[in-house]
């Protein structure tokens, strides 16, 4: 084989190789802007990232609770027929049965707001206004002694609340 022929073959192989390398992985996603995704972006981190504008107090939240929550969670969050939201203090660090509620077990107040916003009221989810969400969260936190009846919570204050069981969790050792 002449040098020239070899060069032609090498060049042809190079072209083939680069054609193969340039074949693109399939890409069928459509670009989306943060503004367009905002209505879906409902996750709230423990640092409060994602909390909306708005505010509310326990006093304001009591009416929201009575109208939207009490049928399942009982008067003042006592529970029945569904989960209790209040009580259980002292049952976590003990040998007896644990009563896990927002007050006794939940480590972050932001989780309460996040969960009510995405999943409650059960038969009418994502229907409360931001002010109603802050108010009813405040009511449940107040029933658990985390805040006072007149304390107002908002995007700044909610992540700063220290829940009673904040330090109750450890990593799985395996």
């Amino acid at each position: 084989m002449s040098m020239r022929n070899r060069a032609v073959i090498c060049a042809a192989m190079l072209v083939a190789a680069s054609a193969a390398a340039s074949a693109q992985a399939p890409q069928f996603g459509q670009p989306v802007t943060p503004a367009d995704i905002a209505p879906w972006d409902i996750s709230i981190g423990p640092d409060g990232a994602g909390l909306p504008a708005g505010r509310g107090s326990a006093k304001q939240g009591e009416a929201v609770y009575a109208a939207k929550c009490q049928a399942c969670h009982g008067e003042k969050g006592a529970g029945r027929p569904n989960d209790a939201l209040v009580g259980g203090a002292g049952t976590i660090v003990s040998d007896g049965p644990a009563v896990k509620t927002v007050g006794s077990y939940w480590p972050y107040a932001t989780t309460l707001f996040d969960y009510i916003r995405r999943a409650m009221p059960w038969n009418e989810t994502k229907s409360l206004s931001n002010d109603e969400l802050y108010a009813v969260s405040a009511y449940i936190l107040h029933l658990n002694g985390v805040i006072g009846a007149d304390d107002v919570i908002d995007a700044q204050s909610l992540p700063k609340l220290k829940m009673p069981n904040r330090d109750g969790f450890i990593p799985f050792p395996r």
Partner: protein
Amino acid sequence: MGRKRKAAQSLGEHVAGNGMLSRRIFLEGAVLASATGIAASSAAGEPLAVAPWMKEPGAALAGYGQPSKYEKAARTVPAPANPATVGIGTARTPLQLLDGMITPNGLHFDRSHSGTPEIDPDQHRLAIHGLVKRPLVFTMEALARYPRESRIAFLECAGNSGALYAPQAQPLNAPAIHGLVSCAEWTGVRLATLLDEAGVDPAAKWIVAEGADAAAMSRSFPLAKAMDDALLCLYQNGEKVRPANGYPLRLLLPGFEGNMNVKWLRRLKLVDAPVMSKDETSKYTILLKEGKAWQFVFPMEVKSVITRPSPGLAFNGPGFYEISGLAWSGKGRLRQVEVSADGGKSWAPAALQEPVLPKAVTRFRAAWQWNGAPTVLQSRATDETGMVQPSRAAFVAERGLRGNYHYNAIASWRIDEKGEARNVYA
């Protein structure tokens, strides 16, 4: 060397106490008169009848096949605590009525927090955003164009076998205790493929997955899992994923606790730290006896369950029986399953039905010559990482009885003199 048939006496040898026989009966396919007590006889005493269905044409062809009308296998659906919230609860796989490793789609377990949504696939979207270079949205049509992959994987609810945390053994059957585990062939697109397309920001360490159900159920999982073996599933056992299991799109995180395999997947947000959702703080954390709780317990650890015999499947007199069940580990393949017919005093290795796949259930079978006396049957699994299913005593000693989730200790069925099985602690 070819398969060698052993002599009858050798195949029927007892390899552990109280009648446990060698597994060679499964591995070599031999059935032995001496071991089984089956004797050739002509007991019928009358000519065999020709059945009526051989004398007339059968039913017309059906568009979607159904089981025989004589088969009644169905999921157990306990009544909800609150009749007003019917979508909250479980539908449990009838493990004792099935064999093999695959759960039929209509019998796959279902744990739901807010009911099964009826999602129009043309309107459903998957969004990938957060710490990525290019936030993207995918239609189901677009997802269907990517190269696909199939894997057989178990799903187990973290609360499966939670009834065994009760201080006293409850009179429950296999589905009521263990029926929140199923296994299917899942087919879809590797999540890593789509993350590469979106361009992962180096700051991203976790992903928040969120469903399109009424509760927008959400969980955080490590980015490393996404890059390892996470699958976005479009198909379940060859057909489109069933609504109760996440139609039209389900996240599969092989080996991880059930609820992390988010159904009706609509959003994946890459973040630098877990979002601390309700289902990774107030639920699905394991409260220990001292008052601390384990958080982010992802893999379902090595476990096995005898499904036959089990309550409701009585043995009919002494003689040969196959003891069969399921074993699995969220950390890989099974290495070994052993069966005891004397309450754990001695153990016989069970035959593992091929294929033995990582993070899938494995069917095991053991041969037993029951002498008709009451006893306790147990199974004990070991996975390829060397983890051995713990005794109930060791399990309780480590974590107490307040954990609710991830119960994987050895389970016991007591067989009484009538051949009935009952849940006991032994």
